[in-house]
């Protein structure tokens, strides 16, 4: 027991510790940052763990990960994701500045439309994945959410790029703010819309997946930013709440008996079933969006040399194929975890590595994602995956493993 290997959790003697998104140095619990919902989490029986420099709920009470996971798929779950970094960019140069950081056609987004995108380094590697929302039709106002575990790298990168931008484009100023102390909760699952609709007058049936709205929420009519989407593959919302009202609005959502508080454990198994990447595991600075299977977020009208960081590599990979590709796997027998080696069907040649894997609570089979050599990536390809020194039969599977149920 307790040499626990996993994508997201490692047991040190007697204590489960989440790793991955966090920076390298171990952090004492006194140094961990607390979200505005920390006390509320603890009061509701959260088992707190260090995650990306924050003290975060892994699970609540005696509710097991499988139960929590299924509750989100069948009803509604509420996740504290206030550790994620919320940014606002505004000004005449905001749109062009964001275009200079990412390969997405952000200028084509409708007002209050959002898209998954990536911050790229000069070699076309992914510094972070991010959701970018346009808040003004003329591109002068943006809302951006990045990963907690990448905040040091993201902030340093944006700071450096913005300094260069300002020097080169004095006529196109950009104002950059980070929302400190704000609440960010994700309400996910088929009952999410009914739960949230009871707390706001804005007609949520008009807000489709990938759209957002500012709405008054709850008895005190607090103005919140509501974005339809999430990290589970279910219908749902991410609600950004001003600091003073974070607890009260969250409590009002929780008060609905269909809603269960859900920790990081089930968040990981839900996103994996939905085929979504977790930075630090499925994505890193060497991996391009083409390798990661995210070619769709590279705008068709942006595929020209010099149009974004690392464009020559990325355009070449789109044309000629990357050397490796992120794909899904189903593994017979034991679940494969991060680091499991992938071999060809004969078990002779190493052709890739698993980056995340779980026994799927929804499907009852072992699912995983990982990087495999280009050419072996087609669905149905038989491979072997090594788990505990034994080669297990596996097959390349399309993702998502559990079909998405977005409101479109």
């Amino acid at each position, binding site marked *: *027991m*307790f*040499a*626990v*290997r*996993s994508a*997201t*959790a*490692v*047991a040190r*003697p*007697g*204590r*489960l510790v989440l790793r991955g998104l966090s920076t390298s140095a171990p952090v004492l619990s006194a140094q961990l940052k607390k979200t505005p919902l920390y006390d509320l989490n603890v009061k509701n029986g959260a088992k707190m763990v260090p995650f990306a420099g924050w003290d975060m709920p892994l*699970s609540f009470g005696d509710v*097991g*990960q*499988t*139960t929590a*996971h299924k509750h989100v798929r069948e009803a509604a779950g509420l996740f504290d994701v206030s550790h994620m970094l919320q940014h606002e960019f505004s000004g005449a140069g905001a749109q062009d500045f964001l275009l200079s950081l990412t390969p997405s056609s952000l200028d084509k987004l409708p007002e209050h439309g959002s898209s998954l995108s990536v911050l790229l380094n000069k070699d076309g590697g992914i510094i972070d994945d991010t959701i970018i929302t346009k808040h003004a039709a003329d591109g002068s106002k943006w809302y951006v959410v990045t990963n907690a575990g990448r905040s040091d790298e993201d902030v340093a990168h944006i700071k450096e790029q913005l300094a260069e931008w300002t020097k080169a484009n004095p006529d196109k100023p950009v104002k950059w703010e980070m929302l400190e102390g704000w609440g960010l909760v994700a309400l996910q699952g088929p009952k999410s819309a009914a739960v949230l609709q009871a707390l706001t007058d804005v007609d949520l049936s008009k807000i489709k997946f990938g759209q957002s709205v500012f709405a008054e929420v709850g008895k005190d009519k607090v103005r919140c930013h509501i974005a339809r989407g999430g990290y589970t593959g279910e219908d749902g919302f991410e609600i950004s709440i001003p600091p003073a009202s974070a607890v009260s609005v969250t409590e009002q959502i929780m008060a609905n008996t269909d809603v269960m508080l859900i920790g990081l*454990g089930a968040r*990981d*198994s839900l996103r994996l079933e939905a085929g979504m990447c977790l930075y630090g595991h499925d994505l890193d600075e060497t991996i391009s969006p083409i390798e990661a299977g995210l070619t769709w977020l590279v705008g068709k009208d942006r595929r020209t040399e010099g149009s974004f960081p690392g464009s020559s590599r990325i355009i070449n990979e789109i044309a000629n194929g990357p050397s490796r590709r992120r794909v899904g796997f189903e593994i017979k*027998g*034991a*679940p494969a*975890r991060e680091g499991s080696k992938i071999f060809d069907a004969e078990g002779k040649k190493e052709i890739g590595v698993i980056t995340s894997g*779980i*026994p799927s*609570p929804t499907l009852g089979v*072992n699912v995983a994602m990982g990087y495999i050599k280009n050419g072996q990536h087609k669905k149905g390809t038989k491979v072997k995956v090594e788990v*505990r020194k034994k080669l297990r039969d596996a097959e390349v599977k399309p993702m998502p493993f559990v079909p998405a149920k977005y409101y479109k």
Partner: protein
Amino acid sequence: MYALRAIARPATAALRAPRMAPRFAAMRFLSTRYTEEHEWVTFDPATKVGTIGITDYAQKALGDVVFVELPAEGTEVEAGESIGAVESVKAASDIYAPVSGTVEAINELLGDQPGLLNKSPTQDGWLAKIKLSDEAQFNVLLNEAEYKTLCEGQ
């Protein structure tokens, strides 16, 4: 009426029987020890067989167990060697042989009911029976008080 009583009496006697079980001589010598890896071993000196499993502390930390991998019967194992794994949704955890010996039996029920490790980690959720090659290895494992202290410190 009398016929009914005749049937009832032996039944009552049968019910009492289990209460006498702890008095059986062999039972007195079964003892349980623990490892720092949160496994337990119950050793029977009469047969030299140790039954192994994971502790309640371990099952709580792991969460819902969904898969258990165990060594084949007849496998020779060395103390400290990884002989299988317990998998929950969130993590895989090695099973280490707490003692050296030969695997005499494995708990086949865990194939269909891995949840037994959560429901009954120290009884129905036992993992394997190992015939010890060196009894002394059992005696150096932690006793209950020492194991309790270990858990409290973590």
